[in-house]
């Protein structure tokens, strides 16, 4: 089947890359140094868009503490704080189903486009307040 596969190989050779480009062409000797070096910024990740569901955005001031989001969260990622009548969201548990954003009566929960949410400190993955919606920085 060499006749079948050769045209394919030739096309692969000439066409653009299919997958996302790696942040760097080669593994640098020190990854942390290379990432913080401003002279050679890494290849940016592909932009997200449309219906992408990223880290939750929570407008704490708008929340009325109705606890509906806690009721539908499949991963028990939303935690109700009885003292303040507000919630916090554990992003490390969240499965990004967006169910809470649908049920929230005041729409203070939205899915942002941030997806780089891993962290060494567990506390950093907890969303307590991201402010009003317009202040959200895009990832």
């Amino acid at each position, binding site marked *: *089947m060499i006749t*079948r*596969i050769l*045209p*394919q*190989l030739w096309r692969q050779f000439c066409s653009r890359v*299919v*997958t996302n480009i790696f942040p760097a062409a080669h593994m640098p000797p020190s990854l942390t140094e290379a990432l913080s070096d401003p002279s050679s910024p890494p290849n940016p990740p592909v932009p997200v868009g*449309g*219906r*992408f*569901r990223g880290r939750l955005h929570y407008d704490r001031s708008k929340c009325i503490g109705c606890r*509906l989001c806690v*009721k*539908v*969260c*499949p*991963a028990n990622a939303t935690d109700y704080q009885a003292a303040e009548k507000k919630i916090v969201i554990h992003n490390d548990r969240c*499965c*990004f*189903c*967006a*169910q809470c954003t*649908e*049920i929230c009566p005041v729409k203070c929960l939205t*899915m942002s486009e941030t997806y780089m949410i891993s962290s060494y400190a567990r506390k950093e993955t907890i969303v307590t307040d991201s402010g009003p919606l317009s202040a959200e920085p895009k990832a």
Partner: protein
Amino acid sequence: MATTYTIPVGPVHVGLKEPVTAWLELDGERIVSARVRPGAIHRGIEFMARERNPIQVIYLSERICGICSFSHVLCFIRAIEDLASLSVPVRAQYIRTLVLELERIHSHLLWAGVACYTIGFDSAFHLGMQMRERVMDVLELLSGNRVNYGVATFGGVRWDVTPELAKAVRETIRYYRREFAPFREIVMEDPVAQARMRNVGVLTRDDAVRYSATGPTARASGLRVDIRQSSPYEAYADIPVEPIVPQDYFDTARGDVLDRFAVRVLEVYQALDIMEKVLDGLPEGPFLAEPNLNKVLASLKKAEGTGWGIIEAPRGDDTHIVRLKGGEDNVCWWKVRAPTYANAVSWPVMFQGNELADAPLIINSIDPCISCMERMMVTDGSNAGIVTKEDLLKRCRQKTFDLKAGKFPGGFNGFKGETKR
């Protein structure tokens, strides 16, 4: 003197994607008999469902399988809709069908690629994976996610098919009509690939009936079975589906791995046709019967009864049975029967008379999903007792200390002298 010996393939094996053990009895390189032993990846999802309300369980059912996640979701949702008599708008039914077929393409392409990889045909594997990207992109456009789409909900779907999306799907259909033929020819007409797959892992028509094979595994053995035809659901009532069997396309149905390959490849073309018909016939109207989740939850709390959902997943029949009790928020019980459970029973028959080197190919040929299949564990109760998370942590640490101190479990005392540094 007996010359047979027994070796295990799995649970951890380079040729397998998921843990299952096949104990093969060999005479030289030839497999005389086989015993399949699952049990390495039971997760207890049904137990978790009993602490959740039906809306939460949608997302739990999505995680039964990473590949046919939408099939499981839809099956669960149909079971709940069955017991609570919820109606679904026609547009939603069409969108569900569209996602089901997109998922079928994604699953079959993945399987075809992996099958090539299992026989060592890596260039075809990469070609398959490259083509699969396209359908993943469309699914991401539709749902915002590449694998767990979260599209369906009770009484409809959560996101509509916009005109731009319909355009993207149509473009994808054109792409596959154009690009899929070279892949099919490269694999199916290659003499080496044919030699590796022809007459390997044969499941005869009678055996397929006797061991209740389902889905593409059964169809490759020549059985005309397809739930989309025999008991149509969603938009399949409007779009006729003919089961794809090898005897219609080739001279006869042999029931070997090459036939399973051919059935799946032809089903990709069938899925493209169905998707086109769905887009052509997509009716106008609402796509969600009741957008207010509180009302849905309240009505499900009142609902009582047992509901069934049976659909044709990419690997075969998927069945969910759910029970809700009136006045209770949570799911009372839930039973899942994934297609692999039916197909795995035929493994020992397929193994007989084949060579050891074909064992991973035969295991992969039914497109097994072991974690979907393992729904319960049976013990003899002799070691009954509950081990808490803290206990497990303590035992785990103790074991590490023991290993560090040179105490090995099970009588193994380490490598004396030679490898110790």
